């Protein structure tokens, strides 16, 4: 019945009479406080009404209620601590990956957070406070005020991969099929350029945290990927003054990194500068199983033009742009196809592109702005596309066989959506955003499959953890993302597909 039997003229009138309000949603805690307050008032009224009843029964009742509340609270806590949110009746079983005693868990992206062994990679808060907060590397990039450690969840256990010696945070981006992981760790040294504690690329191997170091003169580096041959791709500073490097990390990245940054690979512990497209800086986004690397580089320091690149066979190939002055790569598949976004001219918005090995293809020629976030090994692409230059009107898309399909938004109103990852079954995961800009936070984790949109919160047994963003889906249909608890803490989740239960919103 939904969507029919509305008078168009009445829709317009009602929109005018009672316009949609973009105001902030009052905090949920206010609702809880009202409920508790009203309950207390109600109890008070009852006590007056039954004041003649002077036995110890009211006290016992209060005690019983208190005990029930405590047991209930403990039950929630215990149930949550176990991370159990699954039921055989639901298409997915929810697992809260957990933490090391701190409040939150995080996902380091871009990367593949589920390994071939079914492990889940994350960074989890410890109970220890971060003395460097809020001056984390790169400057201002603290997730919260706790020390975090790279973590691997496997077979019901969250394993702490540790960090370099000292009170240091670490994170993990990827693990290869041999179980060797790469990421970054604070090393306890102070970077004289950024004036904050430094963070360097590390390898997690056989229980050890191995410092991969940085380019000569540099204090900072990070490892993004490792392939099955052990080639590690990442970035490093080199100590040469340069104030434009930070822009390569993306519009939302904190600046304050005053030296050049370079795309690098480590092989057998030796770091190699991959060079640039002509400018001073380059960074790595992703690496495929063939050791090919995608990223972006300044192509000119004079004009500050940026272009995506593919590094293969020892050479950095300039993939060009869609006609504009800036483009960046978001992902590449095992065929070496690269996706990302590029502007069409100096002052235009960004469109989603696919570099198919021969040329750049504009996937969203009619969009005001768009981005391609992921490409699977079949060459199918997901991302988002917007009808306007800013504000709402964005939807996720799946581009397949030359045709772009818009993915429906689950939330109504001024919400927008984005596809983050697509598997080889053309199942897409992403998020709905409440309103209205691309800087907004996600509010609902979504799955698009077989032409339908699903709120992932409705595909799992009810849980205190609200799933707000789904970042990756593998070919088993298992999903990794993050959600929030009622108190605002963030948690990583793993959704395991129950194939006996068909996809259907509960």
């Amino acid at each position, binding site marked *: 019945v939904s969507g029919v039997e509305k008078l168009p003229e*009445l829709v317009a009138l*009602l929109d005018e*009479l009672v316009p949609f*309000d973009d105001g902030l949603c009052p905090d*949920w805690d206010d*609702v809880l406080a*009202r409920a508790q307050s009203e309950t207390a008032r109600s109890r008070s009224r009852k006590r007056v009404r039954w004041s003649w009843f002077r036995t110890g029964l009211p006290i016992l009742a209060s005690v019983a209620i208190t005990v029930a509340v405590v047991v209930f609270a403990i039950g929630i806590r215990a149930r949550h601590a176990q991370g159990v949110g699954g039921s055989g009746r639901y298409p997915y079983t929810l697992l809260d990956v957990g933490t090391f005693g701190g409040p939150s868990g995080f996902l380091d992206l871009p990367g593949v957070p589920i390994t071939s062994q079914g492990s889940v990679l994350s960074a989890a808060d410890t109970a220890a406070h971060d003395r460097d907060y809020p001056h984390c590397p790169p400057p201002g990039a603290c997730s919260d005020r706790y020390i975090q450690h790279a973590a691997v969840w496997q077979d019901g256990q969250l394993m702490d991969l540790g960090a370099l010696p000292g009170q240091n945070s670490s994170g993990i981006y990827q693990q290869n099929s041999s179980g060797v992981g790469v990421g970054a760790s604070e090393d306890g040294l102070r970077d004289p350029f950024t004036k904050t504690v430094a963070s360097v690329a590390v390898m997690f191997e056989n229980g050890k945290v191995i410092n991969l170091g940085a380019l000569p003169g540099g204090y900072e580096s990070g490892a993004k990927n490792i392939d099955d041959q052990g080639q590690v791709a990442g970035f490093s500073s080199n100590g040469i003054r340069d104030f434009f490097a930070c822009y390569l990390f993306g519009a939302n990245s904190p600046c304050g990194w005053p030296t050049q940054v370079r795309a690098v690979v480590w092989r057998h512990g030796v770091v190699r500068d991959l060079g640039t497209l002509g400018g001073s800086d380059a960074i790595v986004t992703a690496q495929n199983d063939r050791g090919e690397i995608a990223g972006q580089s300044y192509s000119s320091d004079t004009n500050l033009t940026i272009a995506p690149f593919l590094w293969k066979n020892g050479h950095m190939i300039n993939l060009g742009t869609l006609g504009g002055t800036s483009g960046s790569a978001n992902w590449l598949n095992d065929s070496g196809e690269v996706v990302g976004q590029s502007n069409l001219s100096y002052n235009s918005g960004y469109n989603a592109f696919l570099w198919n090995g021969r040329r750049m293809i504009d996937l969203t020629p009619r969009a005001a702005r768009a981005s391609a976030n992921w490409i699977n090994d079949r060459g199918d692409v997901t991302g988002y596309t917007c009808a306007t230059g800013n504000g709402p009107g964005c939807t996720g898309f799946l581009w397949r066989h030359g045709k772009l399909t818009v993915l429906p938004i689950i939330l109504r109103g001024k919400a927008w959506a984005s596809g983050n990852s697509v598997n080889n079954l053309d199942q897409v995961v992403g998020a709905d955003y409440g309103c209205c800009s691309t800087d907004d936070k996600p509010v609902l984790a979504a799955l698009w499959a077989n032409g339908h949109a699903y709120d992932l919160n409705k595909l799992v047994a009810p*849980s205190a953890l609200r799933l707000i963003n789904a970042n990756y889906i593998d070919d088993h249909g298992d999903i990794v993302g993050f959600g929030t608890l009622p108190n605002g803490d963030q948690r990583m989740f793993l959704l395991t597909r129950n194939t006996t239960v068909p996809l259907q919103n509960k």
Partner: protein
Amino acid sequence: MEEEAVWSAIESLYRARFREFERVARAITGDREVALEAVQDGFADALRHCGQWAGRGELDGWVWRCVVNRSQKARSRRVSGSPVGERPLEISKEDSGLGVRLGALPERQRLVVFLRYFADLEYREIAAALGVETGTVSATLHAAHATLRAGYEEALA
């Protein structure tokens, strides 16, 4: 469904669809601040009395019922001396014949219109929210449309 799960589902509904609840409440009460209060009080009611729901029907519809009830109560307090249902949405668009007719609709018809147009609820959800049969919703919306359409065509004639 366990109480814990119900609370969680109610919270999820609040976070996902607050703006629609607020819009319907604003249409009923005619005041944004009053509407905000009504929505929060409605959700608080839903939490406090979730045992009464006990899995009967759809939870969403039941929460809508709590919010609509709170909104109606808030409006009756706000429009002192006016019984609930007589002065609905405060329509001041005097140049809009459709608006005037909307304001003159019977209470139930107006609520069905609000829930259908502002919250995009399906008939069974509206039925749960108002405590009526699905067929009643269909007939009520049909009647509201007929009244409004007649007014619209009259204005064009």
